[in-house]
């Protein structure tokens, strides 16, 4: 040491003092699961595609969306966005408008003729799919992208299933359905329409696996005393009749009663209104808050002038009137009972929308396939029925009957079928822990209200085409908190009192455990909760 007394060693010599040895708690970049992703029935990586959308990388964002969902434009219209209910920003200044961003990017994709790129080599395996609804089409897409040949048999004259025959056109126009199905056909998926499968065993020869996605197309029969006069129709039959191009039914032009409380009931009511009904009432047995229909749909129906008569059941249908029992409903115990009071409601026609069931006749010959008490096809954890190689999903199995759920089933089933065809065991991805609002540091997010746009259609069958402009997609996407996932804000790097976070020239961040004393400031000041403090035993 060649220095005068009390002159310290050279500059920055304290680097030899590895203060990391002080640490008892240890920061770790954890990449937690955002609640939107966690709740999405299709398992979309919403947080990731929002982060791309905010950088104006719409095509990249669309590619991420379509890894989990081949129908962004459709889902941007008909999905009931559980993601937005789960969005942590909802507790701050309003959820990110995920649904409308998805719709807007889905529309950009159609306008620009973006295609799926299939890079998987052909496996030589063939899969039969029965039913070209959302689940069947999605399964076809996922399987084709995994390298398998896919053929779909469809009973109706057009593919689309409930997207076409269950959802009214004012919510989803045919051009969108056609464009997004065409994209799947362009991959080389063969869709054979007008092909009714009566016995599955006759069809599966030559195929290595089968996916049953026949939906729930039978209207649940109603056990009621009815006399002839009012026209009675099932909602799904009405939708099919309208869709397959027949004349508009004239019987719906006066007073119409809808029986049921789900989305189909609301769709039927709003359809009747558009067909010229003068007066539309929905009869539902529980309270309005207990209706299974989506709250936005209920609100829009009420705005359109549809009356909802709650706590009532139909007792009998007579020549031009309906006898209705008033009900008592105990919300806590979910118990319905007749109050003893009745009333009479006049109606010219009645539409039943009290549920749909699965047409299991197609499987009748396969004894090994079990049917649940609710009439749905039983599958195991790998989506396989009792018959080896036959899988099932969508509305035909037990679960929430939404398009998004149908896509989610298809995604999982495709992975399971792929594993089955390759002779390996399906191993589900391990999910990270979901990050909640309390784990975020919102001091870094200025209040910035959601860009709301009314998507309420007018009283025609034309869809109201509402989209964000490119600029609004960017602004709204940028509202994403990026929950649990580092978005390179550099707070940890800037705030570390020990310079123990290294920022590389490409912006990536790394913790330098040589010097990290474990104070936890990085984790506390991380806006999105991407850093967690763990016990030091497991690290370094």
């Amino acid at each position, binding site marked *: *040491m060649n220095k005068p007394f*009390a002159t*310290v*060693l*050279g*500059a*920055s*010599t*304290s*680097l*030899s*003092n*590895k*203060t990391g040895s*002080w640490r008892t708690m240890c920061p770790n970049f954890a990449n937690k699961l955002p609640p939107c992703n966690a709740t999405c029935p299709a398992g979309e990586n919403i947080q990731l595609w929002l982060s791309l959308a*905010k950088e104006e990388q719409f095509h990249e964002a669309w590619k991420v969306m379509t890894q989990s969902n081949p129908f962004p434009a459709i889902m941007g219209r008909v999905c009931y966005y559980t993601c937005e209910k789960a969005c942590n920003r909802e507790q701050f200044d309003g959820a990110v408008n995920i649904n409308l961003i998805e719709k807007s990017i889905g529309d950009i994709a159609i306008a620009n003729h973006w295609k799926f790129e299939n890079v998987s080599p052909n496996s030589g395996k063939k899969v039969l799919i029965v039913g070209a609804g959302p689940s069947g089409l999605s399964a076809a897409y996922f399987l084709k992208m995994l390298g398998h040949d896919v053929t779909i048999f469809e009973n109706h004259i057009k593919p689309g299933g409930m997207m076409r025959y269950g959802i009214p056109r004012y919510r989803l126009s045919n051009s969108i359905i056609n464009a997004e199905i065409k994209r799947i056909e362009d991959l080389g998926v063969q869709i054979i329409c007008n092909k009714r499968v009566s016995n599955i065993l006759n069809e599966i020869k030559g195929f290595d696996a089968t996916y049953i996605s026949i939906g729930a197309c039978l209207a649940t029969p109603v056990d009621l005393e009815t006399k002839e006069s009012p026209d009675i129709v099932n909602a799904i039959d009405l939708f099919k009749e309208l869709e397959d191009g027949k004349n508009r039914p004239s019987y719906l032009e006066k007073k119409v009663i809808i029986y049921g409380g789900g989305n189909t009931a609301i769709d039927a009511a709003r359809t009747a209104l558009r067909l010229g009904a003068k007066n539309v009432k929905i009869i539902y047995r529980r309270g309005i808050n207990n209706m299974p229909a989506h709250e936005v749909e209920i609100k829009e129906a009420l705005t359109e002038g549809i009356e909802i008569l709650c706590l009532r059941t139909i007792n009998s249908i007579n020549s031009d009137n309906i006898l209705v029992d008033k009900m008592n409903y105990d919300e806590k115990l979910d118990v319905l009972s007749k109050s003893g009071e009745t009333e009479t409601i006049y109606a010219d026609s009645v539409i039943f929308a009290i549920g749909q069931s699965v047409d299991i006749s197609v499987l009748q010959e396969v004894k090994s396939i079990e049917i649940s008490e609710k009439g749905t096809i039983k599958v195991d954890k790998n989506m396989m029925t009792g018959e080896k190689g036959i899988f099932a999903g969508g509305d035909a199995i037990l679960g929430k009957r939404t398009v998004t759920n149908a896509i989610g089933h298809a995604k999982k089933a495709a992975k399971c079928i792929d594993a089955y065809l390759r002779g390996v065991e399906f191993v589900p991805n391990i999910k990270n822990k979901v990050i909640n609002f309390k784990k975020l540091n919102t*001091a*870094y*997010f*200025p209040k*910035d209200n959601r860009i709301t746009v009314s998507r309420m259609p007018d009283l025609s069958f034309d869809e109201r085409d509402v989209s964000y402009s490119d600029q609004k997609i960017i*602004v709204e996407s*940028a*509202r994403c908190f990026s929950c649990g996932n580092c*978005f*390179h*804000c*550099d*707070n940890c*790097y*800037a*705030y*570390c*009192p*020990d*310079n*123990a976070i290294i*920022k*590389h*020239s490409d*912006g990536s961040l790394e913790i*330098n455990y*040589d*010097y990290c*004393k*474990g*104070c*936890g*400031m990085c*984790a*506390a*000041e991380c*806006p999105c909760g991407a850093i967690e*403090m763990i016990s030091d035993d497991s690290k370094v």
Partner: protein
Amino acid sequence: MSSATLGNKSTGKATVQSDHNRPNTLTSGHRACQGCGEALGARCAVDAAYRATNGKIMVVNATGCLEVFSCAFPENSWGIPWLHSLFGNAPAVATGVAAALHRQNREDIRVIAQGGDGSTFDIGMGCLSGMFERNDDVLYICYDNQAYMNTGVQRSGATPPLARTATTLPHRSYLGNDPQTGKDIPKIAMAHGIPYVATASIANIPDLEEKVSKAINIRGSKYLHVHVPCPLGWGYPTSDTIKVARLAIQCGLFPLFEAENAKIVSSTIIDNLVPVQDYLILQKRFAHLFGKNGPSETVEVIQSIANANIEKYGLNGGIINE
């Protein structure tokens, strides 16, 4: 990006601290406690000065935590010319350094003197006042953690009213540091008529960097007062240093302002005003003010100080009445 984080890309105002090539004038391996606000404040301030002068700075350090933890013989955490003499004489030594540079026509090299609140408010006050009245060409930065921390948390002239320190232990009717004591150093600095006085906080690094960059290139005496919470002396978890600093600003107890030539020219408006209780309750040094029956009336004393600050410095967007 709609977030106001330190690497804010959308505003084009990324901080020096978020730059992957930042100078790190105070490097790793120093012996500051976990979660030290002063270590962070010093790196931010000196890095900003380094960047604003293309690295042409010299630093004179008073005795205190910062000096002790950054140069435990024979190691040194500083990557710039750095000098320590005594507790009380940093401003005088800096004056000498500036004079020597002037003599050598090397005034492009800028001089910083820095210390904690002990050396600034108490022990070095005479030298500091002398430096100010002579308007020597030095930027003096005080890192204020409101007590003598490295000797065991004894009271200083910067200790806030009703705070517990080792020498102001609450006992019976005595509720900690007497509200009638202490001094307002930024005002004393302003009273010398020096060209620039400002306050800053580690909870607002963009603002801190801007003030340092401005001050370092002004000729004459400059004073910057940086609020740096101390987890050990104040009694809060080490992870909460920024949170505590942020709440001090948001409740009005630590106003951010700039003064030029004895006149306040701007202040930072509080966009999310909180009661002082939110700030105090996180810190064990104020725990005696919060009994089982909720906050004692004395919290109102502190609230009235915050209210007066809000009024005086226009922290609610009003005019500055000072």
